[in-house]
């Protein structure tokens, strides 16, 4: 095992790790060594082909098909230089005040989160897309929402030079999204931070990491790792874990550090989601333009958020309920399809938690509560109203049986779309906002870390990712992760000897 030494070791390079890396980069000029370990590769611009199978396999853990323990939901999370910021759509929302207040974490207040979020919005070039770059899929959502009595808001997006490829979730082929792979990590590296890719951290011990660097597989995308392949033991004065909910929590669980809070792994939430499609009588622009430009926020009132979306043929097929001719007919109408993503704002409950199997791999236990099912049903009804309001001929609604609704069904949506049709294992449910597992809180009896991401009882160990969330955020999380990571970095700097 090869020995290495650094002052700060950061595990993960996504919204959390990339932010911390940049914020701590000035330490390098003071003679400190800052290392970032990223499990995935460093992709080249030419690697982003936009082809679904090719990119899903390269960018997502288990090609995006990671299943919960009972197989009822798939979880998507990215691997690579930039983590999940490679595959998000760049939607940049500030955490709602009521959510931060409901978390009730001593030392964490909304004004601080907002201030830091606004700083990163400016740094990442967040703006609203101009009307001429809004496609029909988004425009119809706004029109349909207005007719159905909902208020659609435009997403601020962190884009520079967006060409409208619609391929955000497969990694932007034009490098337009301003994820940590485009902004914070390159800035950190210019200041001397070392990023080591293809480096999987196996365990954390007292101020020490045990990791393995893997070679680039033959024909694989990305560059060779920066360190020679092999096993390493890295000593670090400070360790910051930012591998995401399904990276950080399993790492701590398999590390078997003594005295960690029994809350480790608890409080997993994920905004369970599914896709609805509406078929229009004429072709619409849907596979060109930014896919996710508008949303309807009913989180506070009804426990759901609706977002525009446009997925690729297989993901669309997978997410629709059923099979056979009725299913195929929707796919054959692809150029006429409008899509809406329904997200439920789930709450942390004791049943939903992260554990590890005997090999140390993550296992996610998730039970759909009646409240989540009701939220998804309400969201599905609302989406159907929006589709029909926009002029759709028919709608595919997962919690209807059969799922195909004709426009003549519009008056009976409450009867057609019902919780009794929400059958796990039949309905495709997926989630990409993976949160919790190392929640912030007061002390080790109620949480894993304090409000600054410091693990209770271990001042050298911090967490800087969405696993810090004590409960669901109820919006797209990356900006809030950056704000929390910024606090973590500030805490590290504050702890250093003056």
């Amino acid at each position: 095992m090869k020995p290495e030494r650094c002052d700060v070791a950061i595990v993960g390079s996504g919204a959390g790790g990339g932010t911390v890396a940049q914020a701590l980069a000035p330490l390098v000029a003071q003679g400190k060594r800052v290392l970032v370990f990223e499990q995935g590769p460093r992709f080249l611009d030419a690697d982003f082909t936009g082809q679904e199978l090719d990119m899903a396999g390269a960018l997502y853990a288990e090609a995006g098909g990671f299943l919960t323990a009972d197989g009822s939901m798939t979880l998507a999370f990215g691997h690579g230089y930039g983590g999940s910021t490679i595959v998000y759509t760049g939607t940049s929302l500030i955490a709602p005040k009521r959510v931060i207040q409901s978390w009730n974490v001593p030392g964490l207040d909304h004004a601080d989160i907002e201030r830091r979020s606004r700083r990163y919005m400016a740094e990442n070039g967040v703006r609203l897309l101009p009307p001429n770059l809004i496609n029909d899929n988004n425009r119809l959502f706004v029109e349909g929402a207005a007719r159905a009595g909902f208020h659609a808001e435009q997403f601020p997006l962190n884009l520079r030079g967006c060409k409208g490829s619609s391929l955000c979730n497969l990694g932007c082929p034009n490098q337009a999204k301003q994820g940590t792979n485009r902004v914070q990590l390159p800035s950190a590296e210019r200041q001397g931070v070392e990023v080591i890719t293809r480096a999987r951290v196996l365990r954390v011990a007292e101020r020490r990491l045990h990791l393995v660097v893997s070679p680039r597989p033959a024909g694989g995308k990305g560059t060779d790792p920066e360190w020679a392949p092999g096993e390493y033991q890295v000593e670090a004065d400070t360790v910051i874990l930012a591998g995401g909910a399904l990276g950080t929590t399993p790492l701590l669980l398999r590390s078997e550090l003594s005295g960690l809070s029994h809350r480790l792994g608890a409080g997993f939430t994920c905004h369970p989601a599914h896709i609805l499609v509406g078929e229009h009588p004429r072709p619409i622009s849907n596979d060109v333009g930014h896919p996710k430009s508008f949303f309807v926020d009913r989180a506070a009132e009804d426990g759901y958020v609706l977002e525009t979306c446009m997925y690729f043929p297989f993901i669309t097929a997978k997410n629709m309920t059923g099979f056979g001719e009725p299913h195929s007919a929707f796919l054959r109408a692809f150029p006429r399809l409008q899509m809406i993503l329904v997200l439920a704002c789930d709450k942390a409950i004791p049943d939903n938690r992260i554990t590890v199997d005997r090999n140390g791999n993550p296992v996610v236990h998730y039970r759909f509560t009646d409240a989540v099912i009701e939220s998804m049903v309400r969201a599905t009804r609302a989406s159907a109203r929006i589709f029909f309001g926009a002029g759709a001929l028919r709608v595919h609604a997962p919690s209807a049986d059969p799922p195909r609704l004709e426009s003549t069904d519009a008056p009976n949506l409450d009867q057609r779309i019902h919780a009794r049709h929400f059958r796990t294992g039949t309905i495709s449910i997926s989630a990409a906002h993976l949160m919790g597992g190392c929640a912030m809180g007061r002390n080790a009896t109620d949480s894993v870390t304090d409000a600054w991401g410091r693990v209770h009882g271990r001042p050298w160990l911090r967490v800087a990712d969405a696993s810090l969330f004590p409960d669901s955020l109820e919006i797209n999380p990356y900006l809030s992760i950056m704000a929390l990571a910024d606090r973590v970095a500030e805490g590290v700097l504050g702890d250093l000897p003056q």
Partner: protein
Amino acid sequence: MASFISPALAPTFRALAAAFVPETAHATDEQWLVLEETVARALAARPVALQKQIALFVRVLDLSARMRYGRGLTTLDPTRRTALLEWFARSPLLRFRRGIWGLRTLVMMGWYTQLGVIAALGYRADARGWEVAR
């Protein structure tokens, strides 16, 4: 045939595929090859136990067809084949529902990722975006 399933079960898998995605009934040899290779690659990355479960589930479906209709899936008419699969998809047992969901998802992965197939659907996403769409 893909390694996750024995050659003897290959026709059964194709019969299932045709029920899940009717267009596959008219697939060319090359399209079948791509579909089966895609499924095999996807499963190769999964635990061996899961691969065995899927192969076993294909056998269970075929056996169920024989018990219920007196003939296997390959010779069963499409209406009955679909009815049988629907029955499993609506089963009170999560294991059966998941089995159908998993099988149909694999078939859809093998089919709806083929460039010729998605082009025929009219899917035209292009890295150049608006530049080529206008």
